[in-house]
């Protein structure tokens, strides 16, 4: 253990301490002093301006009713005395409601690569639409069937330059061409801007609404920031939506997306969904075919109910390998141990993936394991689609579930999770490691598509 690092953060960081620091930082207290008297004196403005997020701890802002009663009782008297005190002292009153806390506020500053929240943004001066969004402007071309707002002015078509907001009204969709790599469909009621664009990165920011992105580009060239996370394209097509609570809902249709934020990342391949919370970043990745039992257990697990892990694992089948894999990089050793046990029950781990290294969270081993699993995620037919009776999956292995099994796995079931485990294990436990011996991991896709495994890594750009 590095005593220096533990003592004053100097010297070589102890990996375990650094890991604990990172995990626990989500509980760190943020906020500035809010004088109760000042807060009380501002009781008359609308709720949105009463407690600017800039100075109020988040939890407190969400539960103003939990403030001590004595504050409310003495509020008026304190307000009067403090107002008088402020006047005498020549102090300036508290800042007005901060536009920077508005998640829809525009920002002239490019977001850092690590994904900055719009709460740090400051309003940019409105630019004349005729100049900012004209066809001669340097930006991404857009068009819409009805006028949309570009730089605050109506426009049906034009070019969207960096740091300029494009907003769609509730009844209109706009399409935006992203350089030469793809297109975005901005759905009604959305707000989007280009953060920066260049040969190494096209970065955009969505602060409201939803979009559909279809991109054909090397991994990590195209990124969309939201308040909760950054959706890093790995060559794919996906839907991205911001819900009323500021959560980012990502649904990947083809290819893969890495959803990153708050020190976490989730690898979401095609036919999966992941939701990122503004406070804790991406959650668990769930296959489109995930059973209700799994979804329910995942939700409880993410909300801090550690006991839900067992239920989650019992509900997970081979088609949920993406959920299991995503638990490995972020989970603690105890969590990893249980997840690996379930992975082995389901015969998902090849002998070439050492258990001890997986348990230790070794990044290379995790990467290798993911590469193995990508055979299931990308090449196999959609897990929820049972092939015709006379058609066998092209990558079938001795332990692959039969079409009947697949259908049974995918269908929501009323049976209790505890009843599922024996069934699953009876079907899947089989010659666990021999599976990979029979089906080499370097087999090529048989559907003629380019190797999506390559597409999903940062090192290899196949597009």
């Amino acid at each position, binding site marked *: *253990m590095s*005593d220096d690092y*533990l*003592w*004053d*953060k100097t010297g070589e960081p102890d990996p*375990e*301490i650094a890991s*604990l*620091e990172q*995990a*626990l*930082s*989500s*509980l*760190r*207290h943020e*906020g*500035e*002093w*809010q*004088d*109760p*008297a000042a807060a009380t004196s501002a009781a008359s403005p609308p709720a949105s301006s009463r407690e600017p997020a800039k100075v109020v*701890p*988040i*939890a*407190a802002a*969400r*539960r103003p009713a*939990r*403030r*001590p009663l004595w*504050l409310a009782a003495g509020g008026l008297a304190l307000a009067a005395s*403090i107002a008088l*005190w402020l006047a005498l002292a020549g*102090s300036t009153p508290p800042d007005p409601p901060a536009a920077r806390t508005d998640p829809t506020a525009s920002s002239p500053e490019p977001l850092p690569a690590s994904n900055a929240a719009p709460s740090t943004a400051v309003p940019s001066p409105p630019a004349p639409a005729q100049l900012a969004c004209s066809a001669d402007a340097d930006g991404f071309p857009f068009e819409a069937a009805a006028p949309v707002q570009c730089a605050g002015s109506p426009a049906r078509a034009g070019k969207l330059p960096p740091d300029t907001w494009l907003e769609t009204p509730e009844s209109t969709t706009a399409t935006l061409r992203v350089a030469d790599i793809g297109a975005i469909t901005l759905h009604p009621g959305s707000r989007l801007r280009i953060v920066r664009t260049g040969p190494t990165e096209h970065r955009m920011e969505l602060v409201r609404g939803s979009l559909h992105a279809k991109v054909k580009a090397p991994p990590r060239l195209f990124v969309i920031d939201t308040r909760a996370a950054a959706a890093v394209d790995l060559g794919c097509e996906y839907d991205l939506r911001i819900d009323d609570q500021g959560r980012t809902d990502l649904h990947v249709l083809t290819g893969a997306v890495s959803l990153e934020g708050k020190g*976490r990342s989730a690898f979401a391949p095609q036919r999966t969904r992941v939701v990122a*919370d*503004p*406070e*804790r970043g991406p959650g668990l990745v769930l296959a489109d075919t995930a059973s209700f039992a799994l979804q329910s257990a995942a939700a409880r*697990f*993410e*909300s*801090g*109910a*550690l*006991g839900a892990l067992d239920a989650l694992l019992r509900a997970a089948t081979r088609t949920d390998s993406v959920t299991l894999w995503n638990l490995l990089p*972020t*989970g*603690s*050793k*105890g*969590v990893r141990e249980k997840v690996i046990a379930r992975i082995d029950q389901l015969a998902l781990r090849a002998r070439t993936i050492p258990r001890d290294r997986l348990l230790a969270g070794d990044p290379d081993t995790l990467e290798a394991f993911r590469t193995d699993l990508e055979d299931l995620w990308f090449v196999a037919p959609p897990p929820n689609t049972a092939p015709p009776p006379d058609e066998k999956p092209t990558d079938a292995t001795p332990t692959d579930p039969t079409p009947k099994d697949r259908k049974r796995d995918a269908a929501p079931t009323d049976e209790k999770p505890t009843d599922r485990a024996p069934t699953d294990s009876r079907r899947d436990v089989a010659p666990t490691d021999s599976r990979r011996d029979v089906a080499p991991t370097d087999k090529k896709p048989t559907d003629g598509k380019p190797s999506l495994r390559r597409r999903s890594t940062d090192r290899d750009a196949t597009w």
Partner: protein
Amino acid sequence: MIAALPEGLVIAVQVAHRPPVVRAPDRSKDDVAALVTSVQRGERAAFGGLYSRFHRAVHAVLLARVRAEDARDLVQDVFAQALEKIADLQDPAAFPGWILSMARNRAVDHLRRARPSSEAAEPAIDPPPRVEAMEALRALRALPEAYRETLIMRLVEGMTGPEIAERTGLTPESVRVNLHRGMKLLRAQLDPEGAPADEEAP
């Protein structure tokens, strides 16, 4: 030019151009005492300085005892209470121990008023922290109090050992020992198999 300036400003300029002092152990303590004195004299805005210096330490003390969700709320309560009573604080330099003691008492009051069942249940954190964070926090809370508070200040709040010493009033040596021993116990809590044989969790 300098000669034409008021004497106080000349001194300030000279001080600003001094070479950096290698060690000024009591500076922060003096600053805190000065802030306390300012607040006691009626400079209410100075209380913000005390908050910025101590809110994390107060939060750590609370987090060591109550649910994370409640700890966040109680920080504001503790400081509001401190502002109300700061005129009664006889020794301004005693502020660190005074406000942390206030935080401990506030946590005890909170637990006393809370329904017993709610403390026994899984903590309903809002917003939910990372799962591994909750695991680590449970392990931290299982440590003896001295280690618990110190380690939460270090690992959760990101304070360094010297900062912890300043904010708690503990000696740097005590903080160092608490961190070192507490970390050993924490490792044992989190990974019983990997811990050395002689380091059992309490």
